[in-house]
């Protein structure tokens, strides 16, 4: 067991730090959160800088245009960029972390050539069309239908919880191509242009009052058959292949950020006197333990991924992390609210918004209830319910 970085890893870290120290001060101020075109432009410019510096697609395989970095290097990259306050991946999230890797793994040579370079260079933005109003936790219940018509599919249905839909060029879309097949069998993966006729985007307001997500309505949208990745009706497998792609690194930046936030919460408590309340103080101490260990668990999971290589069945660490982190994040902002007192009712307080947003963590990407089923059945081997 070893938590120190190798010389090679330290060299990578040093190079990255030096580059970040050089470029970050020159960045323009970030755009207003409601300025979608501005956000796209900002995020894509940052991606282009990463590309030019050789950091784009760090963890992508080399034959897909990436750098084929190890999970540990990827962890260092995420840790350092977060620590330095670099821009988030933002609008390039789906392209870099899901659609791109899917195409890299399952696409044809032509598809890879067409779609991967613009993602890496920050030229094309992707969004995700997976969830539907009636298919949330039960994603395989999706009903958006694609009917073959010559060399195209005609797609009709609706998608929900799509980020950056307003500014995306492409949408990775799961559709039902065989309504008579068993649920997981009749699904296909399509790349759909967001400016295709029949695509309507409607912003979706969340409890935090913001419009980070959208609903996407599809009315007889024509998608060329050539834009299908993988075989027809094999889209479920195609999609799942990439879900383990993160190899433990999915929340690196967030955990680093949470630990910093916890320090700020403690500082605020010291400033306003709440620190003298041992109940609150111990609560913060408990959270310090929690996030310290979540950080170690991240390193554990990344080390495991690094050892086992791509495609290996991950251990329980990922599910354990997801269950515990989603809860800990909510607790963090509950503690923040206690420090703020009445101030927690101020919607302009950063922590108040974060408190609201944190509510989605036990729901999105598999509710905690579903996660526990997975842990019980797949990891502990308990029998499936009747």
């Amino acid at each position, binding site marked *: 067991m070893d938590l120190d970085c190798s010389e090679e890893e330290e060299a990578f870290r040093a190079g990255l730090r030096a580059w970040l120290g050089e470029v970050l001060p020159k960045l323009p101020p970030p755009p207003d959160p409601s300025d979608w075109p501005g956000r796209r432009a900002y995020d894509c410019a940052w991606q282009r800088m990463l590309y030019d510096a050789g950091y784009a697609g760090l963890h992508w395989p080399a034959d897909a245009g990436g750098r084929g970095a190890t999970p540990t290097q990827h962890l260092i990259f995420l840790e350092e960029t977060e620590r330095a306050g670099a821009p988030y991946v933002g609008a390039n999230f789906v392209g870099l972390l899901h659609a791109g890797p899917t195409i890299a793994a399952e696409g044809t040579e032509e598809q890879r050539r067409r779609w991967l370079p613009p993602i890496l260079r920050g030229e094309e933005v992707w969004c995700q069309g997976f969830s539907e109003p009636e298919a949330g*936790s039960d994603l395989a219940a999706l009903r958006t239908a694609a009917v073959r018509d010559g060399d195209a599919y005609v797609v009709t249905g609706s998608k929900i919880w799509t980020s950056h839909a307003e500014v995306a060029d492409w949408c990775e879309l799961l559709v039902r191509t065989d309504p008579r097949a068993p649920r997981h069998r009749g699904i296909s993966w399509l790349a759909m242009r967001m400016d295709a006729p029949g695509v309507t985007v409607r912003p979706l307001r969340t409890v935090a009052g913001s419009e980070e997500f959208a609903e996407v309505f599809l009315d007889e949208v024509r998608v060329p058959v050539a834009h299908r990745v993988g075989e027809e009706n094999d889209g479920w497998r195609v999609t799942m292949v990439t879900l383990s792609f993160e190899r433990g690194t999915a929340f690196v930046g967030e955990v680093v950020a949470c630990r910093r936030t916890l320090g700020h919460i403690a500082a605020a408590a010291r400033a306003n006197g709440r620190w003298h309340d041992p109940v609150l103080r111990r609560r913060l101490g408990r959270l310090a333990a929690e996030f310290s260990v979540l950080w170690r668990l991240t390193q554990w999971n990344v080390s495991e991924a690094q050892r086992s290589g791509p495609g290996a069945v991950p251990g329980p660490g990922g599910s354990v992390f997801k269950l515990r982190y989603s809860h800990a994040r909510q607790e963090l902002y509950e503690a923040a*609210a206690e420090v703020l007192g009445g101030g927690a009712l101020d919607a302009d307080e950063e922590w108040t918004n974060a408190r609201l947003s944190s509510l989605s963590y036990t729901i999105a990407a598999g509710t905690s209830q579903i996660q526990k089923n997975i842990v019980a059945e797949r990891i502990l081997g308990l029998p499936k319910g009747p």
Partner: protein
Amino acid sequence: MDFQLTDDQRALRAGVRELLAGRFPRERLREAVDRARVVDRGLWRELGAAGFFSLRMPEDAGGAGLGTAEAVLVFEEAGRVLLPGPLVATHLAAGHVEGAAEGEAVVAVAEPGVGGTAMVEYLAQADALLVGTEEGVRLRVLAADAADVADAASAAAQWAVRPVRSVDPLTPLHRVAVGEAGALGPTGGGPIAGVLGLPVGRFRREATLLTAAEQCGSAARTVEMAVEYAGVRHQFGQAIGTFQAVKHLCADMLVRAEMGRTAVYAAAVTGDPQEAAAAKLLADEAAVRNARDCLQVFGGMGFTWEADVHLHLKRAWVRVERFMGAREAEEALAAGLS
């Protein structure tokens, strides 16, 4: 001993529920949220006319001559439908502040908060402001019928008053910075319009209890919402309410709601300050945790602005900060242990 609702109390509850269903149905709630119509003067007068504020005033003073037990039933119904406005303050001011009983006046209240600041609800909408002082045993009406209470309060008391964007779209808030921590408002000087004929201890106890009653109404409503949704939402080929995990979330919610309600009713009957503290403690927990569990049952749909769940959660957060918090309640209850 007959610790159950009387027939009259059941009738009162049914009547209030019917009244609110007619005057403040869900469409009106959503309309108020969309247009930020936080205190609807017309509705306020209707509530006044229905006796919402004068409920406990003697009959010869134009009230219904009812007691705290009836008041908590009414406030529970208000909490169920997320009725906006400074209901507690105006109800307690009835008979003391002109126009409050009839719903002609909107009355706000300020109490001490952390770090010498207080969050005051509906300050800009209020006709009168009640200010509790630590030293005094009375409540003072600072500026009855002033055109702009916020400005008047600010100018008169040299308070730093600034509006904040409230987390609850139906509870506008001002942050009021107080000179000395713990002592809210001027101890001398400034235009004091009157003195409320109500001991501050009793005022606080009743305000705490009525707030707890609102929390219970919200907690009971979110149980219903979760159960209803769990019965119609299907995933994995069946209603999600068939899953034990969802069942147990709902069962836990019911337990919290019933405990809170029992605590509020008991405190209303006995008038005991310790029981009022227990009621606020359990009702706060019931309202907040039920809203969160309801959101969990609703899943992604609960995370949308269109669902009412978040309105229950946010209002519950507002009420948690109002009057007695968990620390004060638990310390008071501990002090009572012998």
